């Protein structure tokens, strides 16, 4: 039975929202919606603001239906979603910081993105005074506990964020994250931008997932304008997306092992990654394929030399990967570090609707290439790996399975690549679009409203929003020295979630 149809009927449907409907609700229906989320009947896909309203995108896991809902906030407040459904808490704190809209009854009202350093508070709403008081971490009580503050500048070459550990001897009893350091104001810069410029910004929300973001932005814009990009462009996007997935997974595979001091794996994996990036460069003229996916299609067709480079690389890549997987699986001292470490409860993964390897290693079978699915994946054969163990080892294995799947997809994509143009002219129209795109990290949600061919408002929700909080649970009871392993096995994006 459909949950969403009665809710959509209870509101006023937006006329030009594609491909899924959006309805404006009253407060009573909005509250009903939050209770469905809390009851586990709906997954939260995103919660974002505008100066006078909040939007929410949800999915019914039973039926696969997706819809967006809107609540007008004439007095600058809305009934809290996070109060009943914790995955919304950080999103509400961000809405408060950017737009000045307050979640009524929310328990945690501390600032999230706003660290008191911007020229004004609530920069995307009515500008206000920046927060004056210092950030307060949640208190931890107990005997013999000590705190370990880490960051925002970390010891390695990684993004900035602050981790506040509370440890009992060597054992972590609590972790509190404080993020927002890389907030660049991307959504603010998008307002009024041309589609090309906004697409470039979307490709820099999280650099490691630049193809997925650019494709997600393009798909949302094309949905809003009712344009179907040429088939060759759609296949090339998938080709780039799968190269990006393998490149990230092989890098993570090596880096996770390196965090257990098994450096030989990092050396071999980083060589495979380098060879793949060079092939990507040969195909599309950029190692990370930045700015190659654009609204309307792709910016460059694949170079013949690139096709040859991929054909030459793929069989060897697969063979060397098999060899490295054997090495991983037969090194007991390494498995000793990854098996049972950093366990994420399947119940949490379901509640947070966590995507990517974090979700799939804890039993959540969701990959938006399959459901709701999008072109060209409906024409390709692939399996979505799911494991139940939920530990670092399971997240490594999900990556291994996905790399093998993606290598198969690359062969299918190269063999079946349709001929024809790679870019279509975009009409300068109005409309709203929503897209879900599977990055290597999980589902990226992008919503936008276009007016006269420009972006009026765009929201980009990284998969990390629903994974970061689970990392806080995963390190519980682990030793401090295993945090890098847990963290790398998640590999959440700082920039993606900070925006």
């Amino acid at each position, binding site marked *: 039975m459909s949950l969403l149809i009665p809710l959509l009927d209870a509101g006023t449907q937006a006329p030009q929202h594609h491909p899924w409907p959006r309805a404006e609700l009253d407060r009573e229906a909005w509250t009903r919606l939050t209770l469905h989320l809390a009851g586990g009947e709906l997954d939260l896909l995103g919660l974002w603001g505008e100066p006078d309203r909040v939007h929410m995108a949800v999915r019914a896991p039973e039926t696969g239906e997706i819809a967006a809902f809107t609540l007008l906030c004439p007095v600058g407040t809305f009934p809290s979603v996070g109060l009943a459904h914790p995955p919304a808490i950080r999103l509400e704190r961000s809405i408060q910081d950017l737009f000045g809209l307050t979640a009524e009854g929310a328990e945690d009202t501390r600032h999230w*993105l706003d660290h008191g350093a911007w020229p004004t508070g609530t920069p995307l709403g009515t500008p206000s005074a920046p927060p004056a008081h210092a950030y307060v971490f949640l208190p931890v009580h107990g005997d013999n506990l000590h705190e370990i503050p880490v960051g925002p500048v970390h*010891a390695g*070459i990684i993004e900035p964020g602050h981790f506040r550990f509370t440890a009992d001897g060597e054992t972590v009893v609590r972790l509190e994250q404080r993020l927002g350091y*890389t907030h660049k*104001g991307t959504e603010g810069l998008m307002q009024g931008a041309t589609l090309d410029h906004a697409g470039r910004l979307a490709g820099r929300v999280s*650099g*490691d997932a630049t193809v997925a973001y650019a494709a997600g932005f393009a798909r949302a814009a094309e949905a809003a304008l009712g344009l179907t990009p040429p088939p060759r462009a759609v296949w090339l996007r998938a080709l780039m997306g799968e190269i990006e997935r393998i490149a990230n997974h092989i890098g993570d595979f090596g880096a996770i092992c390196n965090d257990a001091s098994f450096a*030989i794996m990092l050396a071999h994996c980083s*060589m495979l*990654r380098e060879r793949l990036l060079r092939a990507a460069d040969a195909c599309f003229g950029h190692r990370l394929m930045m700015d190659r996916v654009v609204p309307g299609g792709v910016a460059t067709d694949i170079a013949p030399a690139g096709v040859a480079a991929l054909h030459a690389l793929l069989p060897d890549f697969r063979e060397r990967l098999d060899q490295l997987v054997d090495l991983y699986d037969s090194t007991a001292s390494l498995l000793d570090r990854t098996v049972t470490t950093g366990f994420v409860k399947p119940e949490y993964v379901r509640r947070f609707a966590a995507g990517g390897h974090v979700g799939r290693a804890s039993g959540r079978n969701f990959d938006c290439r399959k459901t709701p699915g999008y072109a060209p994946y409906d024409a390709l054969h692939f399996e979505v790996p799911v494991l139940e163990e939920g530990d670092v080892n399971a997240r490594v294995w999900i990556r291994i399975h996905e790399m093998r799947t993606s290598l198969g997809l690359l062969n299918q994509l190269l063999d079946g690549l349709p001929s024809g143009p790679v870019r279509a002219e975009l009409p300068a129209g109005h409309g709203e679009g929503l897209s879900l795109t599977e990055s290597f990290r999980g589902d990226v949600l992008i919503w936008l409203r276009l007016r006269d061919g420009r972006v009026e408002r765009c929201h980009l929700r990284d998969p990390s929003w629903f994974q970061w909080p689970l990392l806080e649970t995963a390190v519980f009871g682990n030793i401090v020295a295993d945090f890098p392993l847990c963290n790398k096995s998640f590999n959440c994006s700082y920039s993606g979630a900070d925006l």
Partner: protein
Amino acid sequence: MRRTLLESLTRRPATEPAPVPDAADLAALAQAVDGAARRRLGRSLAIRQVDAGSCNGCELEIHALNNPYYDLERFGLHFVASPRHADVLLVTGPVTRNMREALERTWHATPEPKWVVAAGDCAATGGLFATSYACHGAVDTILPVALRIAGCPPTPTALLKGLLALLQG
């Protein structure tokens, strides 16, 4: 394990010849790095990377410098965990306002002589984010910059050329 190790012993190294630094980079550096300081450093530079708000694209390519193809450490260049051990801060990102304090504190924790390399278009010019309410823009609005490495992100070869210029300039 045995097979992987044996193969590594019998195969030729993957490491590639060093790129030659650009003349323009060398000329720009002549004033920044004076001879006395260079003599004190010898042929070694300790690098502390600071992400001042990048999209993480630059970090991916900086990581690649450590892979066997580029093998940064053969040049005496190596990444260190603390600014107190560093000669060079390799800064990426459009210096978000939320990262300014951390960047400045990292700079103050670095002993003299020290240099800042702004890696990537965001750090060099502010990039697409120069006009944002949340960013300061180029790193040189906050710290003195000795060298800029362009690119979005700069390729490992471009990064290597820049860092070698710092050693040889």
